[in-house]
């Protein structure tokens, strides 16, 4: 089982986001960067599939700045075999990122191409299905359960209030949702081994975009509400306000 997993380096979800002085990026000072949480599920699944098959490989690919080698080392420490850094700034336009990844992946020999379902920075949720389409491959997004039997994939994806199953033949693309598995922590042994695993670096092929990022802004601060009261005695007044002031009941 040969897998490729595309990962991204993103600000930790506890980050307080501030807009940078250029108005089109976030202020990186004090921001802690991590491997995108959903990518951990994709990596875990790829590593398990290799372990179960007893053969194969897991290649991690990341489009990002030089500092993103840190995320690739995390992937290698978890169990990926080799890694590629495509040096460049990930675009706000998912199509630009998808084209750069597809250009790298095209021509590689693999069974399954995995992604996290979305990166928690731009929340675009575009790249996995775009890469699939660029490569002419079948695709299942937001996957919470995956079975690979012979060359056949059965993937359960999360939809509103339910699930739907997608079936296709390998090679194909899967975008992982939380719940797909329980990602492992890198062991000390894994971290040591990761230092010796191959990590190739090359320039990303970033094309132009027809989508201009005009500006970033912070959302308006919510107006402070009111404490209606304390304890159960405050409930009638709350219900009255919800009906008469807010008109939502």
């Amino acid at each position: 089982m040969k897998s490729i997993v595309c990962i991204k380096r993103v600000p930790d979800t506890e980050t307080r986001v501030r807009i940078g002085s250029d108005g089109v990026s976030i202020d990186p000072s004090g921001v802690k960067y991590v491997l995108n949480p959903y990518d951990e599920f994709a990596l875990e699944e790829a590593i398990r599939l290799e372990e179960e098959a007893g053969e194969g490989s897991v290649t991690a690919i990341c489009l990002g700045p030089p500092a993103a080698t840190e995320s690739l080392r995390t992937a290698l420490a978890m169990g990926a075999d080799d890694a590629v850094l495509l040096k460049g700034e990930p675009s706000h336009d998912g199509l630009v990122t998808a084209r750069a990844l597809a250009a790298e992946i095209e021509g590689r020999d693999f069974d399954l191409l995995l992604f996290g379902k979305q990166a928690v920075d731009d929340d675009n949720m575009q790249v996995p299905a775009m890469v699939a389409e660029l490569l002419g491959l079948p695709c299942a997004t937001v996957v919470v359960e995956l079975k690979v039997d012979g060359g056949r994939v059965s993937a359960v994806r999360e939809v509103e209030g339910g699930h739907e199953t997608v079936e296709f033949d390998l090679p194909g693309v899967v975008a992982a949702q939380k719940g797909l598995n329980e990602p492992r922590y890198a062991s000390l042994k894994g971290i040591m081994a990761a230092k010796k695993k191959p990590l190739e670096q090359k320039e990303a092929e970033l094309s132009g975009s027809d989508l201009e990022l005009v500006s970033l802004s912070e959302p308006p601060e919510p107006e402070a509400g009111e404490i209606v009261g304390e304890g159960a005695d405050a409930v009638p007044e709350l219900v009255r306000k919800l009906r008469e002031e807010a008109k939502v009941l």
Partner: protein
Amino acid sequence: MAGVLAVTETRAGALRGVSREVVTAARSLADEMGGGVDALVLGPPGIGEEAGGLGAFGADRILVAEDEAFGAYAPDAALRAIEELAGANDYGAVLLAASARGKDLAPRAAVRLGRPLATDVTEISVEDGRPVVVRPLYAGKALARLAFSGAPALMTIRPNVFLPREREGEGAVEPLDVAAEPSRGRVHPVESGGQGELDVAEARIVVSGGRGMGDPDNWSLLEELKDALGDGVALGASRAVVDAGWRPHEEQVGQTGKVVTPELYFAIGISGAIQHLAGMRTAKVIVAVNKDPEAPIFDVADYGIVGDLFEVVPRLTDEIRVAKESGPGVKRRD
């Protein structure tokens, strides 16, 4: 004169509610760009009748492809239809819902059309003839303003933001021939889960519980509150209780869960971690019940009660039941 294509979705033989929002948003955009609205409907035989109703929300032409296979999600057929329609019509924009299907389909359509995509759009305007949109990043901790050049502008719109608006006028239903055969894989029909078809991201009211609930068994309190509130209500959960295995992940609200924009959001026993606030702060009205008066949830709540949720919530359920029996306070949307 650029028209707009509104891509709808059906499930279990009916149009999904969010499709009326897509048509409504398409109508306002088309009015600004001086064009008409085409609504694309793929569904099982008989869907055409209900689809005709989209005219009331602004569709001029309702292009209906009926096939047994369209009872389930049929991405390959939908892509064929979008590509063909976009080739034959000079659309200024193509709109889909930022739903499970829309978010799966739109990126593929973007590649087919060779056009960029804006996901989860919450505002649309036209400046110098170009569609300009606003969409949240970092689960809403930042907002991006994006301007399209070239056409069509491809976007998915966030549920519950562009509320369905009826207008005078009717649409014309026209049959559309779309090959149903999947080319790369097969999608089975949806199996509904515990909450039926209503998802926390599309609910009118969300009742969310956090660690303050103390134990998964105590969710019966929230179930009762949900039942008292009537239709269109879904349960939500904080990351802490999902990580603890108390509630399923599909209920999680926040940066690694769902971003919700309901009319009314109840945060029960939720302190308000930054990643949770990111997911629910755009709810129209927020009610928080927490025993800690310093909990950050009170900074975003419109109405708060400081107290023991095990006393407050049952009382709330009772009072809401009584209030509802005394007659509707407001006429419900939809």
